């Protein structure tokens, strides 16, 4: 039984959550917000078995088996009767879903040699939901091969009925209309460079030891996310100083926050917020320790339940505004797209999403070589970064739409100078 029954037990549709509403409005014929998660096994993937595993997983996590439909005022998700198919992987990942050609599916499972990749349109689920889906899919695949994988540590039991909590709109549950943050944010520095034709997403994966990064973070008494964010901001700051030292804008890196750590919910849909630590070089030059100090204290002060509630409520309140609600969908799309064009990505230089350490049953981990996460191309900005760790190896993945790799260079050479061994993998020059 599919879990499309949250809105109505009789119908097979559900409303988009607060964060999900943004993505269809700002999508275009060429671009949509996609992220990618990959698991590399020790053996080549059997596609037939994976297809069977996918059928079972989609049946369990029906949330993913949806298609986007237009209502009069809002988009909605409808149960997708078409079967999701396993696809071949490509050198240019996270390309537009072309969901009409693919039976309306808003995710795709791709295979290359030993690697299983999941690409998801962000409206469907956030990184947490994607990780659960991928882990359940791989567990089911291993079960097909006769390996017992217990349903624990983020692996769902496909013989169980899905719970309603998995599809709840947690934004609505924790929204507080009395606690609303201001919208005002200043413009940020945007990385410039030479665009490539033909929808190429340049990938540079840096593989580093978790232990090395942990030690560096420990030395400065900060968390790993804070340390990596500071290194990233420092790299962007250096690149900006070389690019145009006369016209300096604040460097802001958007760090997605998994709200499940602060609010109790089992939802697999979108339930994340973000914080934008900032350094403004107009106030003076920065060294790395100063950047790290700013990031550390900014994140600690922002990541409180009250502050996150206010931030979340800001968006939900806008969505609940009667004038917004009665505006026809296409006018709403135009308005959202214009606002996003004018003030969406221009308020941040880039994003750094730390998925964190991948936790999974030991029986399953024994068959998995590595775990990767990647963010698709941002619409207007040029570069994004995703981080995840598995079996002591941290994968820092930069996805960029420009030929130049100055930011990546500053980032990785900084780590090398700190004594961290970095191994790079790239699709550049292929």
């Amino acid at each position, binding site marked *: 039984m599919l879990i499309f029954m949250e809105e109505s037990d009789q119908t097979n549709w559900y409303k988009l959550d607060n964060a999900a509403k943004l993505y269809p409005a700002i999508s275009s*014929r*060429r671009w949509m917000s996609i992220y990618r998660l990959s698991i590399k096994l020790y053996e080549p993937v059997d596609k037939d078995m994976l297809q069977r595993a996918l059928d079972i997983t989609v049946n369990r996590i029906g949330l993913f088996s949806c298609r986007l439909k237009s209502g009069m005022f809002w988009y909605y998700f409808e149960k997708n009767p078409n079967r999701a198919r396993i696809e*071949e*992987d*490509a*050198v*240019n*990942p996270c*390309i*537009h879903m*072309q969901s009409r050609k693919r039976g309306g599916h808003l995710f795709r499972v791709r295979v*290359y*040699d030993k690697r299983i990749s999941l690409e998801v349109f962000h409206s469907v689920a956030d990184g947490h939901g994607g990780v659960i889906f991928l882990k359940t899919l791989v567990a089911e695949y291993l079960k097909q091969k006769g390996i017992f994988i217990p349903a624990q540590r983020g692996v769902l039991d496909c013989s169980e009925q899905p719970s309603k909590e998995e599809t709840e709109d947690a934004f609505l549950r924790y929204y507080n209309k009395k606690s609303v943050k201001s919208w005002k944010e200043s413009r940020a520095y945007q990385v410039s460079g030479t665009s490539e*034709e*033909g*929808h190429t997403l340049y*990938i*540079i*994966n*840096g593989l580093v030891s978790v232990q090395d990064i942990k030690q560096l973070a420990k030395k400065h008494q900060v968390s790993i996310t804070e340390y990596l964010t500071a290194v990233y901001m420092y790299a962007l700051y250096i690149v900006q100083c070389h690019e145009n030292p006369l016209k300096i804008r604040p460097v802001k890196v958007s760090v997605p926050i998994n709200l499940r750590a602060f609010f109790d919910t089992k939802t697999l849909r979108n339930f994340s917020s973000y914080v934008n630590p900032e350094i403004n070089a107009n106030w003076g030059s920065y060294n790395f320790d100063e950047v790290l100090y700013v990031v550390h204290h900014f994140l600690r002060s922002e990541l409180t339940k009250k502050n996150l509630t206010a931030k979340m409520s800001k968006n939900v309140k806008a969505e609940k505004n009667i004038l917004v609600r009665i505006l026809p969908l296409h006018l709403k799309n135009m308005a959202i797209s214009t606002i996003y064009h004018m003030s969406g990505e221009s308020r941040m230089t880039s994003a750094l999403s730390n998925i964190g350490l991948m936790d999974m049953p030991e029986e399953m981990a024994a068959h998995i070589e590595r775990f990767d996460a990647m963010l698709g191309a941002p619409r207007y900005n040029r570069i994004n970064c995703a981080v995840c760790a598995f079996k002591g190896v941290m994968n820092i993945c930069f996805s960029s739409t420009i030929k130049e*790799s100055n930011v*990546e*260079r500053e980032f*990785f*050479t900084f780590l*090398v*100078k700190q004594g961290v*061994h*970095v*191994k*790079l*993998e*790239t*699709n*550049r*020059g*292929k």
Partner: protein
Amino acid sequence: MSYCVNCGVELERAQPSCPLCGAAVINPMDQNPSCESNTFPENRDEPMKINRGFWIKFSSIIAAVPIATCLLLNLLYDMRLTWSIFVSASIFMLWAFCTSPFFFRRFTYKKMLLADLVAALLGLGLIAYPFPVNSWYLFVALPLAVYCYLAWLLIIFLSRKKLPVLVLSAVISVCISMLLVLLEILLDVYTIGHVALLWSWFVVVPCLAIAGLLLLLDRNKEVQHEITKHLHF
């Protein structure tokens, strides 16, 4: 394993150059670097493509139907082409403006503006064709269309150069005043045979004054700040 001598990072065996700095990777100890399996697949996903040929044909049929109908009706009732030429030329220009993006594989504003200029000149030429004695096309329409094309080109070029908004607005203001001066000169020459310049001053003087003010304002950050402070909303 190979390392970049500049960046100090380890690279894949098959990597011919460092992706960070572009330095060539030469490992004399490794004679067969391509034998390592690639992390990334070889095949590429092709993005969604517009069927440009289809849209050109489709819009051409949509435009051809009213043109053919008008021409036919005109011929049937008047036995010659009169009013239908105006309608046909207008539809042709509209079709050309809307369809021109599909003629180019890659969108560039220079090509687009040039295509629009050619379409406008052809359309106006069609309207002027039945009146060979009347030379308004050569003396008014042609120079005006070329001026508009060059002015647009200049404005887009400057906006792409990220000129300050105030300076760009000043340039637009000057372009408008020049257009009106040109228009009056052309009309004067066409109608009375010499340049009188009577009415365009009423627009040119305020436009140039606005341009000057904008340029002054662009240089005075304090005034800008005060205006922003008092008028922000």
